[in-house]
């Protein structure tokens, strides 16, 4: 049988049994579409996170309490490392670092999740106590009012700057938040400013925040002088490595630690954070892909089931083909070609569907998605692979039929 005949036979068979072909293909369509979609969501999130880390500035070093192995991903104002047992950073450490050469700006902060309330509304959000330089390092702009000033920080005044989401959470639309009084952990604060919107990612809404002076946070909310993050901006990108080393040696000395592996803090550069973040999001993407991969396997089993049914249904036809001179390899390749074709058709539809859905999700603004050509390529390969793997057994079975028995099959 020539390639032409193989293609022709396959087309005839696929088009004469349209309903059956459609049902067979459906499993693959769903499988491939979900793989494409899930990987797109994973990679989109990865890109979002990477961009937000990069936006923080390439000259940034982040010092957090706790060793590298414990809660290393404490950058970006999240403060996962804040509660590390025993180990802590204080204003003394900030002062030591600020005297090092190559430091352009330094900003300490500490974060705590607190209840904010006004009569009639109540939200639980992340409250960041900011030190000097925080606004500069984090490039925060206000839309109305002012940010926390150095005087506020020195004086420990009870002022608060809200993110736009926090404003809408607390006040009815149209209210001017400036000058309003809100309670944080029961203590009255005055709203002095509102920050510009930064846009939210799915993981943390950068607008649902409140900023108060670091000293105020330490005194009234946490009751501890601990600092959860020190952001250090180097004067030059080249100076990053030496600054990172200087900070490490200075703090080790200040904390009386000789064994570097026992350091109770970590100094991470942007690239360290990026690689940690991409490990996390990569695992996340892989997990999503694996889950949707299961549906692909189910689709493949569907193909095998349908091909086995086909072989049984067409036993007489197979017997006839053998009787008029089809070799076993002709029969095998015919059924294999059919399975592969069905898988590829399913793959193409699945890719279009997955692509379309990702575009739709991006358009709604809930999540950013990114369809990678790599994922599409792998999907096509997987489709052909499924066709071969799950089509081979039924095809072999067909080719081994005895012509006389097959012709007598009812």
């Amino acid at each position, binding site marked *: *049988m*020539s390639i*032409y*005949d193989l293609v022709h*036979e396959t087309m*005839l068979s696929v088009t*004469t049994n349209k309903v059956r072909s459609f049902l067979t293909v459906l499993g693959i369509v769903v499988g491939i579409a979900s793989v494409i979609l899930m990987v797109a969501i994973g990679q989109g999130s990865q890109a979002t996170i990477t961009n937000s880390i990069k936006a923080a500035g390439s000259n940034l070093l982040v010092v957090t309490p706790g060793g590298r192995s414990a809660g290393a991903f404490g950058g970006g104002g999240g403060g996962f490392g804040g509660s590390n047992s025993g180990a802590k950073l204080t204003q003394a450490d900030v002062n030591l670092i600020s005297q090092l050469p190559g430091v352009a700006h330094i900003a300490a902060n500490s974060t705590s999740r607190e209840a904010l309330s006004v009569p009639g509304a109540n939200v639980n959000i992340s409250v960041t106590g900011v030190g000097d330089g925080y606004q500069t390092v984090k490039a925060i702009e206000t839309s109305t009012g002012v940010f926390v000033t150095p005087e506020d920080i020195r004086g420990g005044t009870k002022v608060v700057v809200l993110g736009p989401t926090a404003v809408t959470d607390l006040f009815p639309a149209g209210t001017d938040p400036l000058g309003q009084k809100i309670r944080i952990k029961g203590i009255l604060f005055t709203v002095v400013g509102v920050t510009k919107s930064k846009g939210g990612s799915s993981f943390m809404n950068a607008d649902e925040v409140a900023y108060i002076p670091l000293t105020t946070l330490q005194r009234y909310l946490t009751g501890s002088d601990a600092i959860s993050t020190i952001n250090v901006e180097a004067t030059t990108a080249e100076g990053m490595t030496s600054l990172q080393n200087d900070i490490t040696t200075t703090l080790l000395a200040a904390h009386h630690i000789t064994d570097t592996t026992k350091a109770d803090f970590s100094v991470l550069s942007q690239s360290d954070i990026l690689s940690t973040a991409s490990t996390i999001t990569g695992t996340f993407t892989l997990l999503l892909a694996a889950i949707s991969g299961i549906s692909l396997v189910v689709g493949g089993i569907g193909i095998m089931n349908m091909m086995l049914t086909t072989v049984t249904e067409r036993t*007489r*036809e197979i*017997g*006839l*083909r*053998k*009787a*008029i*001179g*089809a*070799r*076993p*390899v*002709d029969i095998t390749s015919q059924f294999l070609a059919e399975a592969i074709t069905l898988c590829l058709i399913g793959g193409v539809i699945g890719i279009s569907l997955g692509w379309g859905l990702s575009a739709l999700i991006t358009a709604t603004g809930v999540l950013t998605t990114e369809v990678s050509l790599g994922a599409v390529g792998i999907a096509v390969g997987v489709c052909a692979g499924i066709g071969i793997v799950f089509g081979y057994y039924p095809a072999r079975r067909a080719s081994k039929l005895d*012509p*006389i028995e097959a*012709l007598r099959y009812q």
Partner: protein
Amino acid sequence: MAPILEIRDAVKIYSTAADEAPALGGVSFSVEPGEFVAIMGPSGSGKSTLMNIIGCLDRPTTGSYILDGVDVARMDEDQLAEIRATRIGFVFQSFNLLPRSTVMRNVILPMIYTRVPVGERETRASKALEAVGLDENRWYHKTNELSGGQMQRVAIARALVNDPAIILADEPTGNLDTRTGQVILETFRRLQQQGRTIVLITHEHDVAEYADRTVHLRDGLVVSHEEAEAHDSARSGEEAR
């Protein structure tokens, strides 16, 4: 002259019916090139069983079958397929057409396994269909829309299309009226005159008269050979067992 096909002591026992009498109980018989042989016998006497063996569709349980001087038992699947595709044209008792394909597609089917160039196929199929006298307006109908006689003619056309040297026909005129039956038999006789070897199963004596020689089977055994006087082309030197 060496026989084109020779069966020696063929026994066929169907595994599903092991306790019953064998379908063939030791049949020996041979056919010379260019011969036209009829096989007769009551229903269930083993005619189709014998024909399947001759057509390389089945193998005898014991005994041997020699085709073109080669023992079929020594051939592998691919060699058997090659013989079925090129050497033998088989007309099945139950037609075995593809029901959802057109007449044309059915007749073209054997040519895809002999790699006849695509451009030639329709012409050759048309010639075969003309030879069996099937109305041209049926050629592109699905075969499940045909009458029994029309299906029979498609089955014969399909057997002829690859120009096989040996034509095996299991009751090819069973579903045809006398006149159409005669057209088919004349076609077979013409093919014989062109040098083809023909083996045909029938129940009817007037059909067997077209043959040079008739072999009678009963209960899986050859009971007699009978030379036809009407034709002098018979060259059988076969001894009855």
